[in-house]
């Protein structure tokens, strides 16, 4: 190598040290984030790839969603690991950015990682799977899009959260029971939103309801009122909503309050968010708002949540998670994923991807946190609509809900 041709930091070249440092700053901020953060596995340990945003604007929101996976990993390791081998994380930062997710995935694949947790988000997951599928990496991301559970399309990806179709099944059931005929859709502009809208457009007409308006709003919208006004003027008697973050929940409730409109609302788990504290007037909260969630996270006067779920929630509450993020942290797929992995590896007695896949594809009743999990070669979604229920969003003040910081909610009657 000819070192003499290495550019020097001379003023005559028009570039000096300061310029280079200043110009490189942006690149450094992004670039370093792709380096593996934890890669200190012993030879006998099993590396678990952990695609997680450590930097970027979503790092603090998405961080707590990996807690469930950490709890499962700690439990499994404390019990001796899987086939006697401990699980160790190899964490890479994707900044929750779909353009970074494949790069982060490639980092893991290049290190020989064959099991991956994450990323979060449907767009990020699709981007990551472009890399991991061909490398035969067993992976579970947090993506609600129904096609993510399609085993023919993504043979090594498994879905442990309930799908858009399963959610909408319950939405429609509740709307039908309430005699609703005209429904307006309020959908966030995201891949998950598209998936939910597709499911709604199938399920609602199939049950004799008319979709009278579709309003798609940008995520973290500055004002939801225009969309709500359009829904009302188009004749919507009820709203089926895909609203997945606290800002949009807040703007939705504030907008409805401004319009003095209290329609029946069914929607995504995000409706369990309480909204930004102090931003929503008390009058804006009403009882006709229902969110799809795991049945085991709901209760009735006669039926309490399972003890295993309560114990898990207590572990989650022991961590410093903001109340707004507790619900999503409890329903992430990563706890179930690591236990399903344990089941499959122990059944196959192997860490080979294809053997793990075969064990999972023939599993019919793995004990999941929220119910029995089963897969087929074609269906890689662990849960169907039987584990989903509709919860009353505004039940946070009830004793059990209060004790668990809103993790448990009252189940909607009859659904």
């Amino acid at each position, binding site marked *: 190598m000819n070192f003499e041709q290495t550019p020097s930091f001379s003023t005559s070249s*028009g570039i000096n040290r300061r310029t280079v440092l200043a110009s490189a700053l942006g690149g450094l*901020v992004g670039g370093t984030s792709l380096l593996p953060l934890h890669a200190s596995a012993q030879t006998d340990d099993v590396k678990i790839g952990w695609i997680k945003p450590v930097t970027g604007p979503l790092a603090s929101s998405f961080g707590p969603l990996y807690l469930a996976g950490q709890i499962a990993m700690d439990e499994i390791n404390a019990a001796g690991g899987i086939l006697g081998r401990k699980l160790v994380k190899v964490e890479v930062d994707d900044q929750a950015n779909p353009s970074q997710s494949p790069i982060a995935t490639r980092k893991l694949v290049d290190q020989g990682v064959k099991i991956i947790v994450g990323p979060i988000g449907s767009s990020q997951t699709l981007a990551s799977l472009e890399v991991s599928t061909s490398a035969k990496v067993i992976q579970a991301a947090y993506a609600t899009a129904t096609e993510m559970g399609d085993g023919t399309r993504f043979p090594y990806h498994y879905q442990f959260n309930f799908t858009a179709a399963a959610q909408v099944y319950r939405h429609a059931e509740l709307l039908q029971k309430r005699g609703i005929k005209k429904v307006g859709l309020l959908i966030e502009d995201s891949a998950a939103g598209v998936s939910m809208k597709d499911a709604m457009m199938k399920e609602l007409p199939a049950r004799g309801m008319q979709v009278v308006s579709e309003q798609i709003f*940008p995520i*973290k919208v*500055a*004002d939801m009122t225009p969309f709500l006004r359009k829904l009302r*003027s188009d004749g919507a008697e009820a709203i089926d909503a895909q609203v997945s973050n606290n*800002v949009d929940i*807040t703007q939705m409730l504030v907008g409805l309050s401004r319009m003095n409109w209290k329609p029946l609302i069914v929607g995504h788990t995000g409706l369990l968010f309480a909204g930004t504290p102090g931003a929503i007037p008390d009058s804006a909260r009403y009882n006709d708002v229902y969110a799809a969630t795991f049945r085991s996270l709901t209760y009735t006067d006669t039926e309490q949540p399972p003890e295993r779920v309560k114990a898990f929630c207590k572990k989650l509450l022991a961590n410093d998670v903001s109340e707004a993020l507790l619900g999503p942290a409890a329903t992430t797929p990563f706890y179930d994923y690591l236990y399903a992995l344990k089941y499959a590896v122990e059944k196959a007695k192997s860490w080979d991807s294809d053997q793990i896949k075969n064990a999972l594809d023939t599993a019919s009743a793995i004990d999941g946190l929220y119910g029995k999990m089963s897969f087929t070669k074609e269906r890689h979604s662990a849960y169907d609509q039987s584990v989903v229920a509709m919860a009353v969003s505004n039940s946070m003040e009830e004793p059990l809900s209060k004790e668990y910081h809103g993790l448990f909610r009252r189940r909607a009657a009859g659904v």
Partner: protein
Amino acid sequence: MLLEDLLALLTTGLTMGAIYAMVAVSFNIAYKPTNVFNMAQGELVMLGSMFAWALMTQKHIPWALAIVGVMAVVAAIGLFEERVAVATLIRRPSHHHGWIISTLAFSIIVINVGDHVWGSDAQVVPPVPGATLDTVQWGSLTFSTQQVAVILIAAASIALVEWVYRHTLAGKAVLAVAEDRDAARLNGISPSRLTMTSFALAAAYAALTGVVAAPLLLASTTIGLGLLVKGFMVLAIGGVGSNWGALAAGLMLGCVESISSVQLTPGYRQLLLLGVVLVVLLVRPFGLFGRRGLREV
């Protein structure tokens, strides 16, 4: 669509437009003596909203006192940015466009630090004293007094900025530096000092924007980028350097965005807004109120 709904959309549009206009004016304040577009301007608005939340909501400091503190702190951050990310680069003509990446890098650092300190949860900031978020019904018109306050503050603050430029020695010095940096220096004006002052004032104005916008938008570490983009669009339509142009363009863009929001998906809405920008620039390359970059010699 009902008249009431249409008027509500217009009210929303005017309010958002006023906020966009303020972002654009904050660009102008930093731009005039430097020819630098500060890519971190959106994050300075974000800092204004988050500091307002910290002081007003968390520390319960009175609004009037808190806003002074917020503007002072963000002004200091703007000044720091000017020193580390701009001053050294614009001094050398050979690579004076380095500010594009350096101010962008500064914005990335701000947003990452902000996210680590505050998280991305939205927070509540109280309305301007005397205003509320309660809905007022006036015939077919529905609005909140906070929305009215935002529009009035935008118009009044822009008038004040223009008055400073036209009627004070410092303002005239800024205009002189904007016209010809070297000639201004020969007349005893220190461009370096004016650059520092302008960056600090632009940051303070961005902070003011964040404080008055936050009760409606909610304070959050994620609001900066969107406002940066809209501020740029408004700047392009109104004409770079024209503050009244920014107000007119902001109100127009806000109304187009609001009214189109119920008919178009966000993707098509973005296309429409960019289409408006392109059409304006095709017809008037220097924006509606911009001036040709001609110099008399």
